[in-house]
């Protein structure tokens, strides 16, 4: 039970920690006040509780596809909001609007990820069995997630300050692409899209079920046996983000020249 709790904690909640770590680095120009943190926490908690109570009804909706459809919608809302906040940070400095989009991104993402873990917790807390194992499992899972994200955070900060600053943007793009591409698997599961062509099998190197598999799935959307649709959606999302990164740049400030004219800095 203890091991199972840790595995489920990492599978469901590690992506949330990674998202928060990436946001802390990519949007480090924003000052996140205590009010913003409290509002985000309240929205996410209310969202998780509401979604958790809706899930049994959703499981019957749309010929049994309600949960998957709602998950895909929430993931897309989250990733589009995150990308919008990023684009806004590149072109303008409306910090309040950026924060609103980040609030949407975090809330929608937490709703999808945390609700799966709450279902597991609910089953065991109702029976009042293995409670101590679950508490220890959650404590260990939180410790592992915090350690991993602290390492990731300082690595990204170091990369951002070095000549490899672009790798932070690349990781940001890969994280979003991983989440978007995994939506294609969810849609395939409910027969909304057909994606049976498997491109390769990297299970002998990193299995999906392994610790590395879980970590890279949370960080980069790793898939040992990706389908054509998965790979295409992954690649297209990365391309879209990189194009937006290069196209959307804050206009260089103009420096007044001695003659009275102006010229662009840099």
């Amino acid at each position: 039970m203890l091991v199972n709790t840790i595995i489920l904690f990492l599978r469901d909640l590690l992506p949330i920690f990674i998202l928060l770590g990436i946001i802390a680095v990519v949007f480090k120009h924003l000052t996140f006040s205590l009010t913003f943190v409290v509002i985000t926490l309240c929205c996410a908690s209310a969202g998780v509780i509401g979604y958790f109570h809706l899930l049994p009804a959703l499981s019957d909706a749309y010929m049994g596809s309600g949960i998957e459809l709602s998950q895909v919608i929430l993931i897309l809302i989250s990733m589009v909001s995150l990308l919008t906040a990023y684009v806004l940070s590149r072109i303008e400095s409306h910090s309040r609007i950026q924060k609103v989009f980040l609030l949407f991104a975090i809330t929608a993402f937490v709703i999808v990820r945390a609700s799966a873990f709450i279902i597991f917790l609910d089953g065991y807390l109702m029976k009042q069995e293995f409670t101590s194992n679950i508490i220890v499992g959650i404590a260990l899972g939180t410790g592992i997630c915090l350690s991993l994200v602290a390492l990731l955070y300082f690595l990204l900060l170091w990369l951002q300050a070095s000549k490899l600053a672009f790798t932070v943007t690349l990781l940001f793009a890969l994280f979003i692409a991983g989440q978007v591409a995994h939506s294609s698997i969810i849609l395939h599961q409910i027969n909304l899209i057909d994606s049976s062509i498997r491109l390769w099998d990297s299970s002998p190197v990193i299995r999906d079920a392994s610790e590395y598999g879980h970590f890279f799935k949370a960080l980069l959307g790793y898939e040992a046996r990706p389908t054509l649709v998965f790979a295409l959606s992954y690649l297209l999302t990365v391309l879209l983000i990189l194009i937006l990164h290069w196209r959307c740049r804050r206009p260089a400030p103009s420096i007044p020249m001695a003659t009275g004219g102006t010229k662009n800095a840099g």
Partner: protein
Amino acid sequence: MNSSKPGVINTISLLLLIFTFELFAKSSIKEFHLSLEQHVFSPAELTIPADEKVKLIIHNLDNEAEEFDSFDLNREKVIFPRKSAVIYVGPLPPGRYEYFGEYNPTSAKGVIVVEVQNAR
């Protein structure tokens, strides 16, 4: 403006044709059933045809939720107490594909065997 009308009608007709074809295609998908009782899946081994998409209906007869999970099939789905869940699997090459209940992995486990059927 009027010249664009036939184009719009043709597009809608094409979409309807595709939609109808999709509906027809989905109606021919074979159904297979699994049930979960006392945290045990039955049948423990379910045989499905190779190279064919199938509809898997999982009935949870327990009073607790369970999550059907399979790394081999790349599927995961929560099944609420006393409810059924539907997932589509395949087309798959012949082989053995393991699955388990994420919340009770020691007892709730099984295999989906994919076989070439009606081979001559």
